């Protein structure tokens, strides 16, 4: 495991991915130290292009985009982080349950997985937020995104465990009479940790894009809490007069998602050599 960890850090895609993610996450965490203007500073210049002091420019509402992007990142990255944890966790639980819980549970779990896979994520999110009402809170959004992101994990975890459960040490553990939960925790979960490490950053990236698209299309979602998606939605109407109002949040989203993709690809290369190239 230590050797694997070292190999992972030396892989160029993993290193670059972590670097890009840190480049977005760290400034967001230290936002209060890095912003000289409070989030709703007034009066800043109207639609000033990027310049010293207003690094990302200002928008049509005289807000400083550097400040907004850093504080908005807290919402977006937080939502994506919760969604990634939830998606991976639910996926692992469903996958382990399907592989270990007997044929009927397996059939039901896989039917539910197929059902969820058949539904377009953004459409489900739009419909559910519609029924939730206009003031969707970040945590609700995060949970919803996480609940639309577990299916891939569940399928892969299940198919890997179908092989693992026939391995001698697992059969022996069952013969010794260990409880199912103990076997799942000691023998099944560790076997799929590499898979979860590949999927978690991938879901993180998808969740960032989903949050942004939802805020962009949704019924005023995020109007009270700044997020990158809400910033793009606010800036989309002024692209021709202040392109930087869109470029700043889009750039932040892109850097973070590229970082997450590279991290996922790199980890896959390390834990499953030969899987992709």
């Amino acid at each position: 495991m230590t050797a694997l960890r070292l190999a992972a850090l030396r892989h160029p895609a993993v290193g670059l991915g972590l670097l890009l993610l840190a480049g977005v996450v760290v400034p967001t965490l230290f936002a209060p130290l890095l912003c000289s203007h409070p989030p709703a500073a007034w009066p800043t210049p109207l639609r000033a292009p990027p310049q010293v002091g207003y690094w990302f420019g200002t928008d049509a509402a005289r807000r400083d985009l550097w400040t907004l992007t850093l504080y908005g990142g807290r919402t977006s990255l937080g939502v994506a982080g919760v969604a990634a944890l939830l998606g991976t966790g639910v996926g692992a639980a469903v996958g382990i349950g399907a592989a270990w819980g007997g044929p009927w549970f397996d059939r039901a779990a896989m039917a539910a997985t197929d059902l969820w896979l058949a539904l377009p994520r953004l459409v489900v999110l739009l419909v559910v937020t519609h029924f939730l009402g206009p003031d969707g809170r970040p945590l609700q959004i995060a949970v919803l995104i996480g609940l639309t992101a577990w299916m891939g994990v569940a399928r892969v975890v299940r198919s890997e465990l179908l092989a693992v459960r026939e391995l001698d040490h697992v059969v022996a553990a069952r013969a010794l009479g260990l409880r199912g939960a103990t076997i799942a925790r000691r023998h099944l979960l560790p076997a799929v940790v590499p898979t979860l490490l590949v999927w978690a950053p991938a879901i993180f990236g998808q969740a960032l894009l989903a949050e942004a698209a939802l805020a962009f299309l949704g019924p005023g979602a995020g109007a009270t809490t700044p997020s990158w998606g809400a910033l793009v939605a606010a800036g989309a109407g002024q692209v021709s007069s202040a392109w930087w109002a869109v470029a700043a949040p889009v750039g932040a989203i892109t850097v973070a998602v590229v970082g997450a993709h590279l991290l996922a690809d790199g980890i896959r290369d390390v834990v499953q050599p030969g899987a992709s190239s």
Partner: protein
Amino acid sequence: MPPLPSLGRWALGRVLRAVGLVGAVLLVTWCLVEALPGDACSARLDPDLDPKAFAAIRAALGCDAPALTRLSADLARVISLDLGVSTSRHVPVRSLLAQALPASLVLGGAGLAIGQGLGWASALVQAPRRGTALDVGVGAVTVLFASVPGFALALALLHGALAFDPTWPATGTSTPWLVPTFAERLQAMLLPAVALGLGAAALDARVARSALVGALTQDHIRAARARGVGESRLLWRHAVPNALLPAVALLGLQLPALVSGAVVVETIFAWPGMGRLLVDAVHAADAPVVLGVFYAYAVVVVAGGVFADLAAVLLDPRIRLAT
């Protein structure tokens, strides 16, 4: 080895499963809406109405019937394609969908074609040169396009086109589908289709590349190369047909993502399809339209999955054994 089921038998089973899936979608959404506060009657009636009259109308509309009665009535309505009346536009949801569905299918088809075309083109450049700078460079571009939010891509195309030619019919026309000449229709469709296709292409390129690399590293390729088969013949006659299969098999799984992308693209380019219908309905809190679009999308995606599976089985009959 079990006997191979006949193609007709396999297709019948697959279609039955798809019908079951759509039925499950209907059932789950019905339960979801049922679990939420408020019902169709309280949404339709004025809350300030005299409580007695309110109760009488509720009973007449059938809102107080037992859940099972209402479920079967609602399902019977949906199956007979009666999806209710839009609360914001006051026309039957069915006729709204009948207008929007063709526009969405045309745009989605064009986006799919562009995505697969670009994706395979870049995979054909990458796979034979695996590990070279060109492979890594094209791979970096696909990662970038997979990471840029779809709406950013669409906005960039829209404003790029307008900066290049201010008269470009990109937006403002709410009915690009209804412009008179074919050439104008094509022009109106170009940017949305490219925006949709670029997002899909990034994913298609990655899938096609790894399928092609897998096909190129098989032993029979090495054997063919050893007996002097040329590289281009190796690629086109020996590798590409085998790489088609995993790519086609993934097509069905990719359709939901394409639909999600289309919602964004249709909204930005004012394309009169189902995505824009959905977004407008969400903003207007128009529940019948929201649910109608949701059902229509579910049917389209499930039907698309059946066609993708059928194509995969025609390419490789052994798949019939697996399902």
